[in-house]
């Protein structure tokens, strides 16, 4: 592409921001006895390197599952093993069995941060660059600006390079999946997405839209002909990738069951800690976590989740389109986040990735959502002493979006993709002309509330009777915002049918 040098500059800026954020503290730094996610990753390197595969997921004297037991699928363990081999080469003390527990040093931090950067550079960043280059009907300058905004999204940077995780691997694979499927390389896309699910089981939030879109494509091609062939091929790819990833664990039934038990801990309850979803917010008023028995909680969350995502998924099967696919990814992941079982606040990143993908179509709402998603993780970021990087990266992201997309000039009904919706409403309520005005005011209120809450959390101490006051407020406010977005995205998907038939945009 022309202006390749600007794209290179954008990637370099993204990498620089990532590395400078990584100079800050990480989760659980200097906090024995449990430390945090950083220690968990180091511990997994220790376990996978020193113990045979059969013992990775089982409780034993060498592997105490209470101390950061493996709870991601096998490919995460393989990745840890790979890092462990490199660690052994540099300094074996880092992964020595038992004795390396709680190991912290400058050199080790550098090593761990480098592993994150390399994984990001190999998987996520190329996917983003390729995705932006493949966007249609957009000028080169806008593509580059789009890449800049996606790479500057604060949430992923702060969690991966601050708190310490490897979300860029699973999100990167999911993005390759989206790319493949949108460009009609269905088999490769499915393979990539299977890798994503097998890296982190949370990617199952995205599984339904993938399934519905591919099913819709098969139906479109005709179930008696090419569609059926495609369906069979896809099924084979999925099964083959799962078998390949889980091969060492398919040898015994007990192995497979144990891994599944670790991946889906249904004993842990409806939610843990404070998270910006419905159940936690509802719990403020009515302690459902304590009142309802466990299996009722499970059924309730299952029902709510599926009811809320049903309209979008059915629409996707009947009218598969690339645009519909992306929006359905958003609404599906958001439904899961809001209503599902055992959701963690970091799972908002699963919603943020698809929102990044629609940044060029609805810049105003996407920017708003991405700001709220970063804000919703504020209690976690403050615990990790990442206030300065959070504020700085959020401001940088905001400025990048405002300058690239001129978001404040794109708040008309048409720009917000709400035109067909408002026309339908105006049939019954002729005076419904102020939708975009309302949305602008809501944005202002939302931003002001977020800024105020941040200031209060940082400067004031919570009252003694309510020590979690600010965390709960942050979660509650974020939850309200997310509910609004759930409704908004569902409206876009459902009301897209009227213009969809006219435009025939099926790729």
């Amino acid at each position: 592409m022309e202006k390749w040098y600007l794209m290179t500059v954008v990637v370099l800026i993204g990498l620089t921001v990532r590395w400078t954020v990584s100079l800050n503290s990480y989760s659980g730094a200097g906090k024995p006895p449990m430390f945090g996610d950083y220690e968990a990753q180091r511990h997994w390197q220790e376990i996978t390197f020193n113990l045979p595969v059969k013992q990775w997921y089982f409780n034993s004297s060498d592997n105490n599952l209470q101390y950061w037991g493996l709870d991601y699928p096998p490919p995460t363990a393989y990745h840890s093993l790979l890092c462990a081999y490199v660690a052994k080469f540099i300094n074996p003390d880092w992964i020595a069995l038992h004795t390396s527990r709680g190991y912290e040093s400058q050199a080790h931090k550098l090593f761990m941060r480098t592993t994150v950067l390399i994984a990001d550079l190999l998987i996520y960043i190329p996917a983003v660059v390729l995705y932006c280059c493949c966007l249609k009907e957009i000028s080169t300058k806008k593509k580059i600006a789009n890449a800049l905004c996606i790479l500057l999204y604060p949430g992923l940077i702060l969690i991966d390079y601050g708190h310490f995780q490897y979300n860029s691997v699973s999100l990167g694979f999911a993005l390759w999946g989206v790319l493949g499927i949108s460009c009609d390389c269905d088999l490769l896309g499915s393979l990539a997405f299977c890798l994503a699910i097998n890296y982190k089981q949370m990617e199952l939030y995205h599984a339904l839209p993938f399934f519905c879109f591919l099913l819709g494509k098969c139906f479109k091609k005709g179930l008696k002909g090419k569609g059926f062939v495609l369906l069979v091929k896809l099924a084979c790819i999925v099964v083959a990738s799962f078998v390949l990833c889980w091969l060492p664990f398919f040898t015994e039934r007990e192995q497979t069951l144990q891994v599944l038990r670790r991946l889906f801990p249904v004993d842990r309850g409806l939610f843990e800690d404070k998270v910006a979803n419905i159940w936690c917010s509802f719990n403020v008023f009515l302690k459902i976590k304590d009142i309802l028995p466990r299996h009722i909680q499970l059924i309730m969350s299952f029902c709510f989740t599926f009811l809320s995502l049903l309209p979008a998924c059915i629409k996707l099967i009947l009218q598969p389109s690339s645009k519909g696919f992306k929006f359905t990814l958003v609404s599906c992941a958001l439904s899961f986040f809001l209503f599902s079982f055992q959701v963690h606040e970091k799972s908002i990143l699963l919603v943020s990735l698809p929102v990044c993908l629609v940044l060029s179509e609805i810049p105003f709402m996407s920017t708003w959502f991405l700001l709220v998603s970063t804000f919703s993780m504020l209690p976690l970021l403050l615990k990790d002493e990442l206030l300065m990087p959070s504020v700085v990266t959020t401001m940088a992201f905001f400025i990048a979006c405002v300058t690239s997309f001129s978001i404040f000039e794109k708040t008309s009904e048409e720009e917000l993709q709400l035109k067909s919706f408002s026309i339908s409403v105006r049939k019954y309520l002729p005076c419904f002309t102020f939708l975009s005005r309302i949305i602008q005011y809501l944005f202002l209120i939302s931003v002001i509330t977020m800024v105020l809450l941040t200031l209060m959390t940082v400067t004031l101490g919570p009252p003694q009777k309510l020590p979690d006051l600010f965390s709960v407020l942050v979660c509650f406010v974020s939850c309200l915002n997310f509910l609004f977005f759930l409704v908004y995205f569902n409206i876009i998907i459902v009301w897209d049918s009227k213009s969809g038939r006219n435009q025939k945009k099926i790729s």
Partner: protein
Amino acid sequence: MAALTIATGTGNWFSALALGVTLLKCLLIPTYHSTDFEVHRNWLAITHSLPISQWYYEATSEWTLDYPPFFAWFEYILSHVAKYFDQEMLNVHNLNYSSSRTLLFQRFSVIFMDVLFVYAVRECCKCIDGKKVGKELTEKPKFILSVLLLWNFGLLIVDHIHFQYNGFLFGLMLLSIARLFQKRHMEGAFLFAVLLHFKHIYLYVAPAYGVYLLRSYCFTANKPDGSIRWKSFSFVRLISLGLVVFLVSALSLGPFLALNQLPQVFSRLFPFKRGLCHAYWAPNFWALYNALDKVLSVIGLKLKFLDPNNIPKASMTSGLVQQFQHTVLPSVTPLATLICTLIAILPSIFCLWFKPQGPRGFLRCLTLCALSSFMFGWHVHEKAILLAILPMSLLSVGKAGDASIFLILTTTGHYSLFPLLFTAPELPIKILLMLLFTIYSISSLKTLFRRSFTLVAQAGVQWHDLS
């Protein structure tokens, strides 16, 4: 919404660039900082806790005050803000004190003072006329110049990682250059005089200022062929220039003259005992000279021309600051370096005098003076290369020839700054930023002049001398 739009500077690319680099500087706060951090903390302490009479005599810490008085006053003002962050840093005896609040304060003070640099860059951009070149924003000379200056790699790592206050000082210099372009000579002279009393390293470029102001300001008109018209000499202008310089100097050095401390001040400002080369050699001529001397001495020892007992024990690469005698080649005195420097700047000074080409010629002379002083000066720091790179940036968006020289200068100059950051966590930062700046500068200047060759016969954009 309209207010929010204006507030966030939508569509205003300059604000976005300035804000963007400021946020990057905030991210660099937790990086490694050199002993210069302690130097400035010490100066805050000295100026805050001690009376003026003690400022240039205080020697509790090894990092004594060795900048001119205006900088000392600047530290004094800063110290009054510092006391709200951490009172302890203002204690002269708290050597190497670096609490998190101290770090925050010092870093933010550098970032804040860069406002002057941003303003100066804006003024410089006004002096460029790029209407002939393409309408694409990223190909406009103003845009390219803003990025080259605001996002300059050398300035970023020296000021915001290594820790110094070069940002606002270069801002003063660029502002004075811009004023000279805008034909506001008195302001330009005033700003430069002030700058000299902030950091006397700018003496490197003082000859260019002196000759240009004398030739193009004091002589109000030229003969038709461009040579000097002696009758147009304006005594008034000369006197007013002299007055400006005199008043500024009086304000700066006056108190110390009254206290009879001038010799002490000058001995602090010009420490000739520090040796020909800085502890870590600046890549200048004397580095080559030293290297040659070392090679010859090794050869001499091998071939038994030299007596091993006569070789001085101290090594030039030991990292210490001290006097040194050369073994084979003649030793170099400060006077010798001065003569070499003067010889080197003579051609450009002559051109500036006999064939003045307006402000652009002045800018070339300034760059050459900076480079010559860097090459032949006494005890030059490698950071001094910035004195040549930043003015050269202004020339680079003017002509294709200047652009190619600029690219060579900036790439090698920035690379020579690498040893300043030797810690492992900063390695990716310096590589990434260097790549960023180098790739951008090469590609954007190439794109800029590729177009202009098709539009205009010779080189494209001319400097717009505002009158």
